[in-house]
């Protein structure tokens, strides 16, 4: 039984086929990268898995259970947490309180939820900012907070939507370290990115979307050499990145 199995998922908005008959599987304990140019349907596929869109066709199975079409809260309860591309901290709550909201999913007791949230902040390197208000953080810390909040729900599967976007190279490297650290806790991670330099080295497996279709899938080095992928859109950027390093 696959950890996450997406079969023939289609999502359309009016006449636009945003996700067109996509099938892919994600294995447990891996970091899987989902890449593709703007408008490829990455975010739509992502939001469909997380329950924000109902698929128009196909099925999404998580550990054998059909989750396609379930509302986001039910998906979260099943152990799938997500972050948002544009960060959305609960503005009037402190960093600690933000993370506690996530912690309450598995534990309604205030005291134990708080100590778990504090543990999460420590793990994420946010402990010294626990009393800051969510909106007062830097963009990098806000992204960290999003991660911490999602992590606090004790997910088995973490969906990260462009966590690197807007970060400086140094901050992006720290984020990569954090993702690896989360993955080493036995959490499967699904990363949506268009910054190749970050996705390629951390992913065990990469899937490529273009125009709503799956055009390649495999280990990063194979995908990087895939003619279709390079020619289609990714080529120059990735080569440039390789030459630099």
């Amino acid at each position, binding site marked *: 039984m696959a950890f996450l199995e997406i079969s023939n998922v289609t999502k359309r908005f009016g006449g636009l086929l945003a996700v067109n008959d996509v099938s892919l599987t994600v294995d447990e304990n891996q970091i899987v990268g989902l890449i593709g140019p703007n408008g490829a349907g990455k975010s739509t596929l992502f939001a469909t898995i*997380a*329950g*924000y869109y109902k698929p128009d066709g196909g099925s999404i199975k998580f550990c054998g259970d059909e989750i396609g079409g379930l*509302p*986001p*809260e039910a998906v*979260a*309860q099943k152990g799938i*947490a*997500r*972050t*948002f591309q544009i960060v*959305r*901290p*609960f*503005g*009037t*709550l402190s960093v600690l*309180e933000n993370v*506690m*909201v*996530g912690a*309450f*999913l598995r534990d*309604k007791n*205030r005291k134990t*939820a708080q100590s778990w949230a504090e543990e999460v902040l420590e793990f994420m390197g946010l402990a010294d900012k626990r*009393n800051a208000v969510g909106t007062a953080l830097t963009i990098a810390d806000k992204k960290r907070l999003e991660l911490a*909040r*999602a992590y606090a*729900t004790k997910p088995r599967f973490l969906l990260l939507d462009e966590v690197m976007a807007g970060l400086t190279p140094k901050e992006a490297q720290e984020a990569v370290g954090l993702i690896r650290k989360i993955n080493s806790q036995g959490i499967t991670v699904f990363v949506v990115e268009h910054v190749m330099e970050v996705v390629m080295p951390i992913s065990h497996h990469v899937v490529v979307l273009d125009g709503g279709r799956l055009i390649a899938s495999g280990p990063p080095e194979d995908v990087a050499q895939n003619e279709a992928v390079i020619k289609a859109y990714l080529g120059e950027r990735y080569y440039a990145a390789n030459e630099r390093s």
Partner: protein
Amino acid sequence: MQLLKNKFFIISAVVWLALLAFPLFVSSPFYFHLMILIFLYALLAGAWNILGGYTGQVSLGHAVFFGIGAYSSTLGLVNLGINPWLGMLAGGVIAVIISLIIGYPTFRLRGHYFVIATIALGEIVFVLFTNWEWAGGAVGKTLPFIEPGLKSFQFGPKAPYYYIALSLLTIQLAVTYWMQRSYLGYYFQAIREDQDAARSLGIDISHYKLVAMGFSAFFMAIGGSFYAQYVMYIDPESVLPMMLSIQVCLIAILGGVGTIAGPVIGAAIMIPLAEYSRALLGGSGSALDLVIYGLLIMIIAVAKPSGLMGLITGK
């Protein structure tokens, strides 16, 4: 933070003890009446605050629940011969049930559309009660005088009403305090801040909005029953007006939404303002309190959106 919290507790305790002793030193019925009204409106604004302040679902139809409470105990007593205390509890339960029926469809609406829906509901219920003969219609219902005492919820002097209002307010504040510290308070605020982000963390927002609505409606109804027993006469104009819905909302906003003490502070300023302007200016000045309300709200909205509580906590 801890220091501020301790200070808050000490101040609250001192104020509460002073309020307990108040009837020993004051005998003027006007001041009693004023204090009772402050307690009542603090209770109502606090009830509104659970849904509107903590959860961010601004309702301008909350008079409906106040009216349900007032009518439940009154009709229970006058038409069915039920003890008003029981009627008060029944009113709370009925208000919760009605609030869930109202909330289920309206909570699908977001932002302004929810507000508009609550205004419409308030008006519908007003018209229903105006035309419902069994409930007294537009004429209303006068409560009969029965043997005064705790059991009958009727008293000659004002002091017992004073203590009952203070007790009800205390219970409401205690429940709000418990709620704010439990996961419910966190969930309510998460829903207020960002509904989609809240859902991503496994919060069933429809469910928790209904929970907030239920608490809110219950305490509005309790306030309504108390009002009916205190004034001894109710009609749609006095217990279901749109103005009441707006007033409880304004009091909470003035004091500070999403805080425990905010509605109390708001009521302690607004109610004396209204009563004094009415007393000093008589009939010709009867609308002046509303003018002052309006001005105050404008000043608060521009200068301190977090309300007067914001001046204390520095947010």
